[in-house]
């Protein structure tokens, strides 16, 4: 049954969706376009483009959209549920394990090494936004303002982003 294949496909997607957002897209594309032929490549690319202009993780949004295309509202729900169920369960289990083993020297050691590693990944991700930040005078001024707003004036990150979003909506068309 179509629904079963949908669930099956996205369960697998969720289980192997390591790394950043775009590697998940490749995996989803594989299941959606190649294996199950639910969409053509063009249709899939359109979905990805749409998912980039909507809030939420791009992998989840793509799953929701594909689910809807394949099997309506139920499909959207099932695809979304399937894609996150493995990650969420693992997250909870691993975190429980961590909370229990907090005093373990090995676990502590692993985490003290893991934190700078992951922090470096976030720093590396920021490089991806370097161009947008500095490619023109507007970007330069905006970036300086952002730093000032966040650090000196304690502005909410969310408020800052929304303000720029609004600005973009009004002036960047």
């Amino acid at each position: 049954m179509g629904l079963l294949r949908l669930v099956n496909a996205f369960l697998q997607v969720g289980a192997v969706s390591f790394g950043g957002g775009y590697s998940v897209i490749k995996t989803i594309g594989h299941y959606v376009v190649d294996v199950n032929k639910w969409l053509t490549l063009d249709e899939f690319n359109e979905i990805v483009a749409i998912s980039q202009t909507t809030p939420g993780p791009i992998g989840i949004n793509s799953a929701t959209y594909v689910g809807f295309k394949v099997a309506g509202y139920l499909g959207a729900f099932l695809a979304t549920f399937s894609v996150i169920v493995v990650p969420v369960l693992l997250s909870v289990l691993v975190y429980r394990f961590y909370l229990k083993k907090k005093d373990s020297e090995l676990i502590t050691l692993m985490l003290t090494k893991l934190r700078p590693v992951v922090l470096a990944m976030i720093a590396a991700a920021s490089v991806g936004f370097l161009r947008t930040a500095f490619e023109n005078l507007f970007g330069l001024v905006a970036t300086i303002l952002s730093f000032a707003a966040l650090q000196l004036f304690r502005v909410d990150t969310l408020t800052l982003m929304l303000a720029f979003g609004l600005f973009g909506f009004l002036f960047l068309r």
Partner: protein
Amino acid sequence: MRGINDLRLILSIFLATAKIGGVTFGGGYAMVSVMQDEFVRRKKFFTEEEFSTIVALAQSLPGPIAVNTSAMAGYRLLGFVGAVVSVVGSIFFPFLTIVAIAAVLKVNYQLLAPFVRGMKVPIFAVLIITVLKMWGKSVRNLEELCLFIVTFILVSFLKLNPVFVIGLSVFYSVLTYYFKPKRAKKR
């Protein structure tokens, strides 16, 4: 005793995550930055160190980092129920938005494009500030600094798969644990 306080917490978690999930464009790390603002600074649900740990674990597991972080944060607050509420909150508005767009088919989603483009401008600053905030609890000595630098190089310039890099760090941890017998046995 369960009851009204738990319910209030559930609502609080849901509202916070829904708010975050509903307006955060620009990728997982941006959402993590916003979560840090909301959970650590404003609502004081966790300390900086706890949050850094959650993020580190979230990155190591499959799934979008934002979803994993939500799940763990929710779990920390209110167990499994908290995790579920947190995740549902995070994807609540995105889910509705996507279904609405999919159902109404030819909605001009391009309407949102300038909004998103605008939102992406401050993200560089946001991420740098996030790194600075988590720095104190993540990089405490020379070794950790080296790990930071090496990872940065591996991921930025050599474009290595993040999972592989995390695997390496775990391997490294295990090595240092077993080859420092003095430290291990001292306790």
